[in-house]
């Protein structure tokens, strides 16, 4: 085990997989010089410009070219500089990558990975802060992951690269240098599709992922001091959802809070709540609560507006207390 930051874990996963797969190609904007977040620092010298490919400023072709590469023996890992800029590539991801296997009746797959730095909290304003996971998690044929820890960041990225199907990999940009943790020294993967129980407690259940997991865990510690015991489930994979883990965690306490950064209406929290309301109904002791950002078009730039907008540890804790008291 070695302690590393979230971004180091991603860097290491890419590096080790570039070593493992001689035809792996990473492609995106500015990645040769290391990328705007320095995730791909040093790769150009090590693996050369053919495998560390600077693309034109054109996201639809970043995704589309990756799809083509995957048909012909390359292992493409595309980067969308900010998840906010994945929308010009939406058609490629939804109509093409996601349906490749289905429409060919299983004759061929589309093993691409699309990395998307995402999330708020760095004053990125409307177009450098979004959490568009709900769009992609709604698309059958796409797998969607959103790791919270360096361990999972590395293990899920490796799993994504080795997966035979398209995977959208959401890496939280606020986590890059903020979140540290132990990472195994040997090769490992974290299986796609499995949530992780981060804390167990009988009073209520919080379901979260990525940065909101950390806020929720901090809130849970705070509440523990007040005698409220919380189960915290880290989804990790957002599609396909780990239904069993979700339902077990809901049944364990009968009270559920779901926390996410995306806006509330139509966010992934709705799907999770609906699963619970259908399949764990008899266990529920309280309304299913969601804490998310309000229905406004992404985070404003102004710091007071940003603070107002983003769910914080404090707001998590308040919602949890209220639910525990129900």
């Amino acid at each position: 085990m070695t302690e590393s930051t979230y971004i180091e874990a991603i860097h290491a996963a890419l590096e080790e997989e570039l070593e493992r797969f001689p035809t792996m190609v990473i492609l995106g904007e500015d990645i040769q010089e290391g990328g705007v977040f320095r995730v791909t620092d040093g790769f150009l010298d090590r693996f050369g410009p053919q495998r560390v490919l600077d693309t034109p400023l054109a996201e639809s072709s970043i995704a589309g070219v990756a799809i083509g590469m995957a048909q012909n023996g390359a292992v493409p890992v595309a980067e969308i500089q900010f998840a906010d800029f994945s929308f010009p590539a939406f058609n490629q991801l939804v109509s093409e990558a996601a349906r490749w296997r289905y429409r060919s009746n299983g004759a061929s797959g589309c093993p691409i990975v699309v990395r998307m730095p995402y999330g708020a909290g760095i004053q990125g304003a409307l177009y450098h802060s979004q959490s568009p996971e709900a769009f992609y998690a709604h698309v059958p044929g796409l797998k969607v992951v959103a790791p919270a820890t360096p361990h999972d960041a590395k293990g899920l990225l490796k799993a994504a690269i080795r997966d035979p199907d398209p995977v959208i990999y959401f890496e939280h940009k606020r986590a890059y240098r903020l979140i540290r943790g132990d990472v195994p020294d040997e090769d490992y993967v974290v299986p796609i599709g499995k949530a992780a129980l981060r804390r167990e407690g009988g009073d209520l259940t919080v379901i979260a992922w990525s940065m909101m997991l950390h806020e929720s865990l901090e809130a849970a510690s705070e509440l523990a001091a007040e005698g409220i015991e919380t189960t915290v489930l880290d989804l990790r994979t957002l599609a396909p959802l780990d239904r069993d883990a979700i339902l077990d965690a809901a049944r364990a306490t009968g009270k559920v809070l779901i926390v996410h950064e995306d806006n509330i209406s139509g966010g992934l929290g709705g799907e999770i709540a609906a699963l619970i309301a259908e399949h764990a109904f008899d266990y529920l002791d309280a309304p299913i609560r969601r804490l998310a950002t309000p229905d406004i078009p992404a985070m404003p730039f102004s710091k007071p507006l940003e603070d107002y907008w983003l769910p914080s540890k404090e707001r998590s804790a308040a919602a949890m207390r209220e639910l525990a008291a129900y």
Partner: protein
Amino acid sequence: MTRIHQPESGIRATDLHRRMYRDMLLAREINDRMLILNRQGRAAFAVTGTGHEAAQVGSAHALKRGVDWVLPYYRDTGVMVVLGMSAEQIMLSLFAKADDPNSGGRQMPNHWSFPEQRVVTRSSVIGANLPHAAGIAYASKLRGLDEVAVVYFGEGATAQGDFHEALNFSAIHQLPVLFFCENNGYAISETSEKQMSVRHVAERARGYDIPASTVDGNDVLAVHQEMRWSVEEARRGHGPKLIEAKTYRLVPHTSSDDDRRYRPRAEVEEWARNDPIDRFRTRLIEAGTLADEEGEQWAAEVREEVDQAVDRAWAAADPAAESALRHVFREADGSP
């Protein structure tokens, strides 16, 4: 940059020409039959390439089968015939049968996928597969393979952003890709003046410094010659090319379309007089490559082949209802 190729004056009596003619006949027969089967209520939907056979057969015969990658579009019955998809397989697709090699009855007819001939699956979203061709060619280059990728599309597709992005990427990396445009003057009802401000699709390639040519798409040999040269160039590492084959669809856009609403009959009739199959037959007979009675005999053979294909495909099994749930992701049994 734009040049109209004239076919060589003397056609040599080669097997290739006979083969091309036969393929065109078969493609036409399949095309026509698909539409008839729709009109008879036996096929829910048909989209055909009647009139495009020279462009399709001439170009596809310039490819190395099993080596080159092919991304045909919904009109390209002729391309698929050249690549060896049988009339029966195409009819299995028309009837959405379980054994349809393209999609097992999941996609509309003529949405090709034929892995054994390196035909990759495509959607109905026009323009979206052009970047795929660029990506395939990039991988060929990366891996040092001698392959070329060809993507087929109509002139309407050239208005899409993905067209621009694919050409741009291919030109920057000098990839072995051919952009083959079957310009039939219409995108459903819209004439090409509504799609572009230049006369020829070939002119669109200028903004990328991609060499481009405009050929008579109803002249199978002219198409073939231009395509051969372009494929060789691409294979030699000289980068992408765009070929525009000017042609015409002699039929409605699809079985759902009524082209009398937007095309003058006189225009259709004039192009019918320029039917690529008739033109080629005349030349083959004149050159002594084909005997008159052979032409008739082949036509009869092809009809018979398609008759049988239809019967067998019609009798084939539908996909099992619950199979609709399969292949969203790779299954444990280990498909690709």
